């Protein structure tokens, strides 16, 4: 089943065309990586899908339903979750509270009137938060303040926030940016584990070619806002247009 369909998507900033007539479809259960040189429009594309930006033209459909007129939180509620490029977490709250906020949104919807209900009674939320923290290996640090975590753990918490929303499609914007080699390895293991256990569909934006070739079923190459190539890792390695635009000089 096709989960996400992007149809003739265009985004212009003034005179600059950041996304130029992109057509893309993502099947359920697929792991797709989007790569491309700096300024190719990768982040713009993700921001269009998550509704941080309004497209100039074109349509985005999720599970067959257009999302271009939806609010960001509605898109999350429909099942598209995003992990940010930087550790975008709730710094002054504990790790557990961070996960609980995401779990609350997943379990009880985008808004509710439960301001007279003690949070101890939200057992479903506690369970989801606990499971998610366990999955990313942060359960033992649950009572620490998020800001005190080392950078790698903050990024894992960031991924946990995206996972606690129980998405059908997870967009990850450079999940290993700024990490040490050990942290990178741990994160890639985490992504593979999540894929195995939750059967998530995800779209990865990444610079690190090693990771891209290791965990993608399909790679989409963007350059100057356009899709210039699309295929399996093997096909992309051999594609001359890609070599020229992006991989030239990179030892694969």
């Amino acid at each position, binding site marked *: 089943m096709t989960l996400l369909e992007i149809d003739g998507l265009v985004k212009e900033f003034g005179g600059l065309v950041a996304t130029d007539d992109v057509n893309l479809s993502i099947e359920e259960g697929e792991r797709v990586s989007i790569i491309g040189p700096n300024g190719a429009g990768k982040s713009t594309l993700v921001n269009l899908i*998550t509704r941080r930006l309004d497209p100039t033209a074109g349509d985005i459909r999720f599970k067959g339903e257009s999302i271009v007129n939806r*609010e*960001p*939180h509605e898109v*999350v*509620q429909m099942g598209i*979750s*995003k992990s*940010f490029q930087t550790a*975008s*977490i*709730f*710094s*002054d*709250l*504990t790790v557990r*509270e961070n996960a*609980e*906020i*995401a779990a*609350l*949104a*997943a379990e*009880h919807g*985008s*808004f*509710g*009137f*439960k*301001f*007279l*209900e*003690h*949070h*101890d*009674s*939200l057992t479903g*939320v506690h369970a989801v938060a606990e499971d998610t923290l366990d999955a990313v290996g942060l359960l033992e640090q649950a009572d620490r*303040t998020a800001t005190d975590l080392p950078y790698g753990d903050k990024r894992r918490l960031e991924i946990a*926030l*995206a996972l*606690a*929303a129980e998405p059908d499609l997870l967009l990850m914007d450079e999940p290993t940016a700024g990490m040490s080699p050990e942290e990178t390895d741990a994160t890639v293991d985490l992504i593979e584990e999540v894929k195995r256990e939750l059967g998530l569909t995800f779209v990865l934006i990444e610079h690190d070619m090693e990771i891209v070739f290791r965990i993608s079923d399909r790679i989409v190459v963007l350059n100057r806002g356009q899709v210039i190539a699309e295929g399996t890792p093997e096909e992309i390695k051999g594609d001359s247009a890609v070599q020229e635009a992006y991989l030239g000089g990179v030892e694969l």
Partner: protein
Amino acid sequence: MSDEPEVASETGDGSLADTIGVFAPRGDELRIIAATAAVLALFPYVFARMPVVSDVLQGYQGLTTLILIWGIFALGFDLLLGYTGLLSFGHAAFWGGAAYATGVFSQHVSGSPILMVLAGTVFAVLLAWGLGFLSLRRGGIYFAILTLAFAQMLFYMSSSPLAFITGGENGFTGVETTDLFGMLPLQDDLPFLLGELLGTVMYAFTALLALLSIALAYRILQSPYGMVFRAIRENEQRAEFVGLNVWRYRLMSFILSGLFAGIAGSLFTIHGNYVPLSSLYWTESGEVVIMTVLGGTGSLFGPIIGAGIYLYVENIVSGFDTIGPFWHLILGILFVAVIWAFPRGIWGFFRDVRDYVTGGEDR
């Protein structure tokens, strides 16, 4: 603030909580409410009647009621400023609006203190809904200015176009409060020991509403809302991107803080038996900001302490022969000194001391 909130509730009142429903006290709520009740019961005696202490403080009964009234106002304001991270500069609209609504209600409908508080509070909530809906379209400084502008509009409206209702420059003088439960005049002293401790019926009535307000605010902070408000303050964008409707939660935060301002404004009318035009003026909005920040944003009791200190300087220090005439200056210096030394206000200072003494870093 809580040490072990989960332990008590999970071992003890699981089935009890189910029967009483969601309102049953959980965790340390009972402890907090009991401690608050004890402090509220002793406060007038210590402040106004206790030998030596009250002489040094020069306190008097009427001020204790006023401190609690402003305390309720500041407590609600802190929900918005300290927890959700929104600085409103127009809360005089809800305070003064409720005060006028209460006065008009007493003249035309009923002078029962309970109904008057109810009427003023409902008015403030509806007003907060409307003004919040309009003001929350913008964030940061624009939000502050919009709230200020709306509140000043109300001030202007009541000063002349609506003077036939509000009394214009003279204020609203037609407040007609009847006895509490139809038999207890508010200005009378309570009998025996209660009279010695609490003083007047008005204080007891105010203290009861203050206790309810504190219990309500604490429950809100322990509910999902408390968590969501802090999440919005910390990282609004992330809150939206975990799937929360930030806009509606903000509006609820605004309305809930309007609710507390409404309770306080209504009590202000009953306490003073009069509504001055200045209750809608922007300086009232400023005062509640100062009280909240002075006492400590993001805490339950800080704003109430801030209100107490502010009113103490305004009403008692200002009467001292020596430094009295400079009370504004004293307040300013006090404010700067506290914020410079303890950015999280007086309550933040208490918390730091406690953490230092106990060695624990419990949040």
